[in-house]
């Protein structure tokens, strides 16, 4: 019995059912906004896998200190024709490639959603599976996909998707990759210090970050970079959106935040404001992001349940000048958030609010569609 050659991740009926419900609830959310399903390939070339990887940290995570091509991927497959392929580590790059090749020539923008497994290397013994079920959506094209409205559409769907799937207590942090650049410019951070601050933030080593910012302060004594450095100093302690905006204005870099501010206002108008906040410390792990970036957390789950952003340069790699923005939801994280919720309701003796057998009514997800 134990010698059965079973490898990888599997779900028995009870677990599979919850995931199926979440997938279909998300699919309905996306379809209601005109998104069409697409099935990207499971196997991609190593150069495709390399697009999503960050620089040094992804290579370190992979356990290959010398960083061979495709080191950030967990499995390589030797095809019969001798080509080396890999299991996809994200879906954004393959979906974007398919859109550029087959869809954008005929219509633009295209709205696509997908669901399936992605494979990412994890530390051995960490208890984190390398295969993860992901559902996501991408808005790709010219004009309509390049505006703040497109970002807003993605973020609205992010919140709606989670709400419709049954997650009630979540918080999505928003930032813009250009904003950190602008702040570092204002603080006069250059060369190694700039790189260091960036990677300390990415690795969430806020002790090192603090040391680098203090060293910057000592160098810049008396120069006009003081305001930028002040902002760097308080960056991690900014909690409310209002506080963060005030700090940005004080440092004279609020221009870079113009689109973020208008996006936040639009989300507020749609009644979703309480789920979003400005979080300047976000540095997304995938390096193809060029504008707005976000990651969201839910009570009951220790890692991000949702993430995404704008990635205008990725399409240029496939020979297109189109822009794009997208989101991806980690289904297993949604499941643990829902289980937490259920446990809470059960332990408080209240009625079970979330019931996997009862959620089969397709109308139930329309209930919370936000106004706009």
């Amino acid at each position, binding site marked *: 019995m134990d010698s059965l050659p079973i490898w990888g991740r599997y779900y028995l009926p009870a677990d599979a059912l919850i995931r199926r419900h979440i997938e279909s609830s998300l699919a309905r959310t996306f379809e209601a906004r005109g998104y069409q399903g697409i099935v990207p390939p499971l196997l991609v070339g190593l150069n495709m896998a390399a697009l999503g990887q960050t620089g040094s940290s992804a290579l*370190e*995570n992979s356990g290959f*200190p010398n960083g061979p091509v495709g080191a950030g991927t967990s499995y390589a497959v030797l095809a019969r024709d001798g080509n080396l392929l890999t299991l996809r580590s994200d879906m954004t790059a393959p979906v974007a490639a398919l859109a550029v090749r087959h869809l954008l020539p005929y219509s633009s923008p295209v709205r696509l959603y997908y669901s399936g497994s992605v494979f990412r290397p994890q*530390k051995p013994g*960490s*208890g984190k599976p390398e295969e993860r079920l992901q559902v996501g959506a991408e808005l790709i094209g010219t004009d309509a996909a390049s505006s703040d409205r497109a970002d807003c559409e993605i973020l609205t769907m992010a919140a709606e998707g989670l709400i419709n799937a049954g997650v*009630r*207590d979540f*918080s999505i*942090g928003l930032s813009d990759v250009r904003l950190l650049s602008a702040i570092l410019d204002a603080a006069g951070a250059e060369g190694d210090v700039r790189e260091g601050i960036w990677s300390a933030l990415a690795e*969430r*080593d*806020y*002790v*090192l970050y603090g040391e680098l910012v203090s060293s910057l302060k000592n160098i810049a004594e008396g120069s006009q970079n003081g305001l930028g450095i002040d902002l760097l100093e308080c960056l991690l*302690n900014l*909690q409310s959106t209002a506080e963060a905006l005030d700090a940005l204005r004080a440092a004279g870099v609020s221009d870079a935040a113009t689109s973020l501010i208008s996006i936040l206002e639009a989300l507020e108008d749609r009644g979703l404001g*309480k789920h979003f906040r400005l*979080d300047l410390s976000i540095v997304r792990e995938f390096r193809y992001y060029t504008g707005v970036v976000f990651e969201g*957390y*839910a*009570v*009951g*789950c*220790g*890692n*991000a349940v949702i993430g995404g952003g704008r990635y205008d340069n990725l399409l240029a790699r496939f020979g297109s000048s189109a822009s794009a923005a997208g989101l991806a939801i980690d289904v297993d994280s949604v499941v643990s958030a829902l289980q*937490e*919720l259920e446990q*809470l309701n059960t332990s*408080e003796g209240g009625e079970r609010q979330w019931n996997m057998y009862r959620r089969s009514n397709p109308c139930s997800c329309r209930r919370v569609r936000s106004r706009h």
Partner: protein
Amino acid sequence: MEYVSAVESVLVQESQVASLGMRNSLSIALPKGRLLQPSLDALEKAGLQVPGMDEIDRRLVYDTGNGKVRFILVRPADVPIYVEHGAADLGVTGKDVLLEGNWDVCELLDLGFGRCRLVVAALGGMVAADAHDPESLKLPVPRSGHILRAATKFPTIARRHFAPRRDLCVEIIKLNGALEIAPIAGLSDVIVDIVDTGRTLADNGLVPVEEIMQVSARLIANRASLQLKAAAIHQIALALRNNIVNHSI
């Protein structure tokens, strides 16, 4: 004690925002061993109600009277595991543990206690004074050719430290404790270990030959908790930081 109410009121506020439970409690993973007492002291000074040493040693999980803050007692190397998975919102552990593991946690604060050095040490009889700098000692000549065997609890740190050495082929042997015995028993040429006073090393005839870095205790937080329980965590971090600043003055 006034501060207790401050943290708790924040926790209550955050739970009201969410109109749900879970946000109104905070769990903190503490390291067993030498860092435990200073961790408890620091948290107490920061205004939290903490259990006594004997009490927490007996129970491993300790909830403060009103159930708002829970302390979990685990091995130092396991603290980041609890925090990474979100089983604990906050944790205290050594920088050595954080460097070794490449954890996905937020490192919030250098707590200033538990200071010690990560060093390469060898048997006193085998080291030679450096020709260029008589003050410092240098690595022993390996027993066989270029191969230097290093025993350590920190294979990643050791590997990274020896990586630039083109003159040595370093073999790392992972041990789980009592490293001092390895060179004596002939298991390795050197050890890579943390040293506090250096007495244990000296007692076993070992001398430090290279210092890799200084380490100290760090406050770490789960990524999700840092967003969802931001106010409570920042309040504790701020109080801890103020105490460190006051202390150093």
